């Protein structure tokens, strides 16, 4: 989300010395954007306050996207924070910080799933790993079986921290499209779960 015609500034975390010296200029009721700006200005704790608002929800969303793997979800969210730290200076504010964070997490989850698929192709039956992304239950398996667009739509809409308007903004589609995807996903999930019950 770089502004048109503007080169992104070098993405790097505020230095530890700068963090020590920089006093916190925003209060507890500051907006996400203000916290991010504070972090860019050198206040590392501002990132902590931003994380306190969103980290748990992001882990929940990532867990749903990654078939119920908590370890995988934590890895995805940590990678997302690294991306945030590197790209914070170039954040322009065209979308809400929460939308931006959620998109980063979704992209990291897609990357991890792609890596996992490649790994499984070369190593079909790997030994038990902590971050094995294979679905653990019936529902997780059914969710994993959905097309990516439907899976993301249905999970975003059922996140307690996200409204359907926010979910549509994250996926960059109109609300109607989002609802249509959710309806299709739910119907497909019901069918899959019923078939599994019968078999």
């Amino acid at each position, binding site marked *: 989300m770089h502004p048109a015609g503007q080169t992104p500034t070098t993405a790097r975390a505020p230095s*530890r010395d700068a963090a020590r010296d920089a006093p916190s200029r925003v209060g507890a009721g500051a907006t996400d954007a203000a916290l991010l700006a504070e972090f860019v200005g050198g206040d590392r704790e501002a990132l*902590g306050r931003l994380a306190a608002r969103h980290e748990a929800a992001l882990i929940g969303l990532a867990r749903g996207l990654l078939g119920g793997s908590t370890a995988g979800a*934590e890895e995805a969210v940590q990678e997302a924070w690294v*991306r945030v*730290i590197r790209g914070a200076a170039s954040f322009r504010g065209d979308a809400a910080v929460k939308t931006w964070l959620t998109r980063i997490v979704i992209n990291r989850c*897609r990357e991890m799933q792609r890596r996992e698929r490649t790994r499984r192709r070369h190593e079909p039956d790997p030994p038990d790993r902590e971050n094995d992304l294979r679905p653990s239950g019936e529902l*997780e398996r059914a969710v994993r079986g959905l097309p990516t667009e439907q899976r993301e739509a249905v*999970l975003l809409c059922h996140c*307690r921290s996200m409204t359907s308007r926010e979910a549509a903004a994250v996926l960059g589609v109109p609300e109607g499209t989002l609802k249509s995807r959710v309806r299709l996903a739910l119907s497909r999930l019901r069918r899959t779960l019923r078939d599994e019950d019968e078999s």
Partner: protein
Amino acid sequence: MNELESQLAKLTEPAPAEGTPLWERALEQTDAESDERVRRASVLTVFARPGLWFSAAAALLLMAGVLTLPNLGDRFDLAEGRRGVTMDDLDNDRAQDLRWLDEAASGLAMRSAEPASATNRWVENFALGREAAQAELAGPSQTVLLDNDDPRWQYNFDPNAPSRAGVEYQRQYTDAEQESADTISWTAIRQPQPVVRLVARTGSMNLEVETVRDASAAIASMIDAPAGEYIQSRRVRGEGGDATARLVLRVADARLESVMDAVSDLGEVGASGIESQDLTDSIVDVESRLRNERRVETELLELLDRWTAPDAARGEDPLRDILAVRGELSRVRLGIERMDASRAKMLRRVRLATLTVALEGADEDDAGRPATERPGPLERFADDLAGAAGDGLWSIAASATWLTRALVSIAPWALIAGLALWLAWRRVRRSRPAPLPE
């Protein structure tokens, strides 16, 4: 909210990270990466110093010098040692079994010198130089004398001994004879002689002459037919300044250079050169196999004579045995004839060098014009320059034509391949949604 939806909400239920918060871990990770970048940058800064590179290069040169100089010395000593070895040195130290001399340095190289303990006779094996090998190639010869005429020092060929020089021989003598050998002159042996190499040479010349037909006739007259030289092919095309000719001559190897000199006097030489092919190994190999096959043939003939004699003791099926031997005999004879022909062909190539002469007429404008009216060097240079520029333009035009034709012929296939790739790419894109904008 139905049960499915509540399960979905549970699946995405917010959950704090276990242990250190993830944002703190991410900060530590980026800090570590930043430190690593700084460290690498500092290392690169060190390597960017020119003084360091100069010092390293100087140290390497010094090391190379220290390592190389002793080897150079060794080589020098070795070379000197080789040249310094004489037959006297070898005679004085016969306890050492094998002595190798550089075949290239001495035409008559000693292979080994060792005492034959049972007879108390000394046996020396030699490889022959040019003269002896030539004698062998000219016809069967069993005896070769060196410069001295002492009959005790005549050397017999060992026809079965393979040698790179073509022939090896042996001399034998007793201790008493050896003592008197000190008085024998070894001058002939000590003289460095080139090792005989059987080389087929091929010369080629491009010539610009005033009149192609006259030059062609003049070249043809250079052939010494009684000595076996001949014109292998002669082709003349065109007339006047456009005329060209190509002659392939077979001339005696020793005369190749003189004939080339004579040909070069007929006009302006564009290019000329001589190529050589060493056939020594091939000829020696064929001769060795030929000797072997001839021995087999003799043995088979003796066998056949014995079986066909009136008082011969015959086996159960004498006819079959005789037919088998005859069959084998004809196979061996065929092999001998083939090898003989191959040997003769190779020797002919060695004896007669091949000279290919390509003749071109002088420019049409120049033909028949007195030398004083011909263009000077500057005019020629300008003409050449213009010609080269024209050639360059033609070459660009030809390349462009070729490229266009290639593109046109490839276009339909490229279109089909592009369409297939685009469809495949669309399919992949559909199955893998593009990343969300960050």
